[in-house]
């Protein structure tokens, strides 16, 4: 101790041997047995008091605060982990949903394209059929028209032949022979 020796304390040093009773002048204080009892009693009282305060109040309080903090940190970490897991699960679900939606969209697209194709094909077919039918009809008409025209040609040719023969010979030719001759000429 850097206790200064000046001032009012100095005389007390020399006087204390008488004043304190039992202290021997010049004796080394730590070895003055007359003070032992007082020190032991004080130590017993205050150390027991300290022990009671420490064991009953101080350590449970401080230890409780440390433990509460530890629990809080662990709880928060667990909570954070839980939330992280949740968000990861949500992300995974979202991705799954997205993938399925994409494939569904593709399926719908394919389906509608196939349907449109099929419809177009069917329309094309029916149109072709219609056209073919019309064509056939037209051909039939042409053929019949041609046949009619040919028969008309034959009649006209026979008439013309009859008339030519009559004009040339003055004899009205026999219809049957004229027809036969026209036929033969047409075939020829």
């Amino acid at each position, binding site marked *: 101790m*850097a*206790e200064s020796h000046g001032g009012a304390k100095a005389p007390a040093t020399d006087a204390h041997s008488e004043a304190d009773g039992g202290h021997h002048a010049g004796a080394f204080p730590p*070895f003055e047995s007359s003070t032992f009892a*007082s*020190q032991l009693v*004080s130590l017993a009282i205050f150390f027991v008091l300290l022990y009671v305060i420490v064991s009953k109040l101080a*350590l449970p309080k401080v230890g409780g605060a440390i433990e509460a903090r530890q629990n809080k940190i662990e709880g928060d970490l667990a909570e954070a982990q839980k939330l992280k897991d949740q968000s990861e699960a949500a992300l995974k679900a979202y991705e799954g949903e997205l993938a399925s939606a994409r494939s569904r969209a593709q399926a719908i697209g394919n389906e509608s394209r196939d349907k449109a194709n099929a419809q177009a094909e069917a329309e094309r077919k029916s149109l072709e059929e219609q056209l073919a039918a019309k064509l056939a009809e037209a051909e039939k008409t042409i053929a019949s028209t041609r046949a009619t025209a040919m028969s008309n040609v034959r009649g006209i040719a026979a008439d013309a032949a009859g008339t030519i023969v009559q004009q040339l010979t003055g004899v009205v030719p026999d219809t049957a022979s004229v027809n036969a001759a026209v036929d033969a000429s047409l075939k020829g």
Partner: protein
Amino acid sequence: MKIDPIHQFNIEPLFTLGHIGNHTIAFTNSSLYMLVAVAIISILMLASGTQLVPGRLQSVAEISYEFVASTIRSTAGSEGMKFFPLVFSIFMFLCVSNLVGVIPYTFTIASHLIVTVALALLVFFTVLIYGVAKNGLKFFKIFIPHGVPGYILPLVMFIEILSFFLRPVSHSVRLFANMLAGHIALKVFAGFVAMLGFSLGAIGWVGGVLPLALTISLYALEILVAFLQAYVFAILTCIYLNDAIHPGH
């Protein structure tokens, strides 16, 4: 100017509490500083809050708690935590009273052998009683080290037993002597400054710079010693308690 480095260790009765036999029991300056130490520890440990994010005072309280707890765990294992209140009380009592004692004009409780002996004997008997109560006769295996050849075993046992019973002596004298010697050295060097100044005048005051520098560095050392000796006392307590908890290790 006379230097009296011993005066600081005087026990001054403040008032008388009573008598036991022919001993006068007084409330002394030593008692007062014990009360101060208990009050500081109580304020530190009880007035600090229990907040999730600790303030300064609470941090100091929690650091003290963790420091003592980890000291016990590392030296005496988790079973040593039974003695947590005891070790914590001893450590804090000595640490606070030693640090208060470094302040000029104060009194250092641990500079009296009777106090350190009382604390050392408290530890000694705690070890002895708990060791025998918990382990029975196996406790005395601490006197028989492993792997010692039979022919020197009696000698080793004798030394072990002797050292066991000398423990309270080394335990208490180490603390007492450190505090006493440190404070005397500090007082002597500080006294030189005043002595030189008052006896040699101006030259003396200039010359006093050297002892003053020494006093300052010694003072820093004493602050370290105050903490360190409390820690040494506490860790030796833990090591001795470890013998009671795990004899034969």
